[in-house]
């Protein structure tokens, strides 16, 4: 039960992007199309998974004083490998993501999870945590990309990352006269991000308020029941 809770916390409760504001550099930059978002999300999940596993396996061997430098080196090596793989297998993705694949190495999510979780827990828990946070990141990224692509270009399109000429699906949702091209560019990124972050804060805040109100009500009811019982005894 605990494991499942850990896994799902990365989606809404502790959403790394809109809640904890981790890794926002890459989110703002690559959320222009669904292709980019999915590609970046997959790269981050792979890196996060491998780094969590390696660091969890090595957690007893690494001297405590220098663990952060060691983690940085491990993550940098992993990102170099991932970047080479992307360059080899999907040149279209490499070109549209550009330097941001290399910037995964300073993505706060990866080093953060390594330090907070993988260095203290076993391999299976670390894998679940990596998948949870990685999927939370990817889902948030996809949400932003969906909004930006549909409102910005009007077309919902997804091409095969390994073969740029093959279009898997392409729907024109908003005719091109009504698109707001602001959303495809920089200000639109900030705007979408700010609004989504505010909405998530509202959702979490209201949920917390409800939980607190229920706890209060339960307390009041329990106090009332205790008082009534005392009164009965006194009679």
């Amino acid at each position: 039960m605990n494991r499942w809770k850990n896994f799902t916390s990365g989606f809404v409760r502790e959403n790394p992007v809109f809640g904890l504001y981790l890794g926002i550099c890459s989110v703002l930059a690559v959320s222009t199309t669904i292709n980019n978002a999915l590609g970046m999300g997959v790269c981050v999940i792979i890196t996060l998974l491998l780094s969590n596993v390696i660091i969890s396996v090595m957690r007893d061997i690494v001297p405590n004083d220098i663990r952060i430098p060691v983690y940085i080196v491990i993550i940098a090596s992993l990102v170099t490998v991932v970047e080479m793989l992307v360059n080899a297998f999907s040149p279209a993705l490499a070109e549209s993501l550009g330097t941001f694949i290399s910037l995964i190495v300073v993505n706060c999510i990866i080093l953060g999870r390594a330090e907070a979780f993988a260095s203290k827990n076993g391999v299976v828990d670390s894998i679940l945590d990596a998948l949870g946070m990685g999927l939370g990141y990817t889902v948030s990224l996809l949400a932003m990309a969906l909004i930006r692509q549909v409102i910005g270009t009007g077309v919902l399109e997804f091409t095969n990352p390994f073969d740029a000429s093959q279009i898997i699906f392409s729907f024109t949702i908003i005719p091109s006269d009504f698109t707001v091209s602001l959303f495809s560019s920089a200000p639109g990124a900030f705007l979408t991000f700010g609004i989504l972050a505010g909405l998530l804060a509202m959702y979490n805040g209201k949920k917390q308020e409800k939980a607190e109100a229920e706890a209060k009500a339960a307390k009041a009811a329990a106090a009332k029941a205790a008082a009534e019982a005392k009164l009965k005894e006194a009679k």
Partner: protein
Amino acid sequence: MGELFTLFISAALIDNIILSKFTGMCPFLGVSKKSSSAVGMGAAVTFVIFAAALVTYGLYYMVLDPLDIEYMKLITFILVIASLVQFVEMVIKKFSPPLYKALGIYLPLITTNCAVLYVVLENIAQNYNFIEMVVYSLGVPVGFMLVIVVFSKIRERLEAADTPKYFKGNPIGLITCALMAMAFSGLAGLV
């Protein structure tokens, strides 16, 4: 000379690394609540980006390229930036407490920061020669400092404004960034 000036202006204003390239957001959102800390942060970033650019450029063309190990550049650059910041902080702590008070405390926040790594990688990716590298590496932090100081002043005003309850703090700050980005993107026709 004209191209260098264009490079400087585009690095600082048009392709501003925060409002146009989106890197350097973590310290931007974190330290911009007071304008005094924003100035300190800007100074620290300027120093780190310039020093790191010089060292990594030198290392790339004098060691990695001749030895044919360019694929090590990401690992090398990260380690260089991190070691440089640790070293500089150590030196400042020992030799100049007033300087430490002014900008030393912001140094750790930019250790492995998107902005520094972005500039360093771009220097190589765009094949800048030495002078272009210097101009670019000075233009970018100037733009960063400008934006972070302006943003911190706006944010100080926002604290007193009547924003919707759940939008307070970062969400409304980001929407403000959107407006700033719109303003800066209008400068694109300058050069």
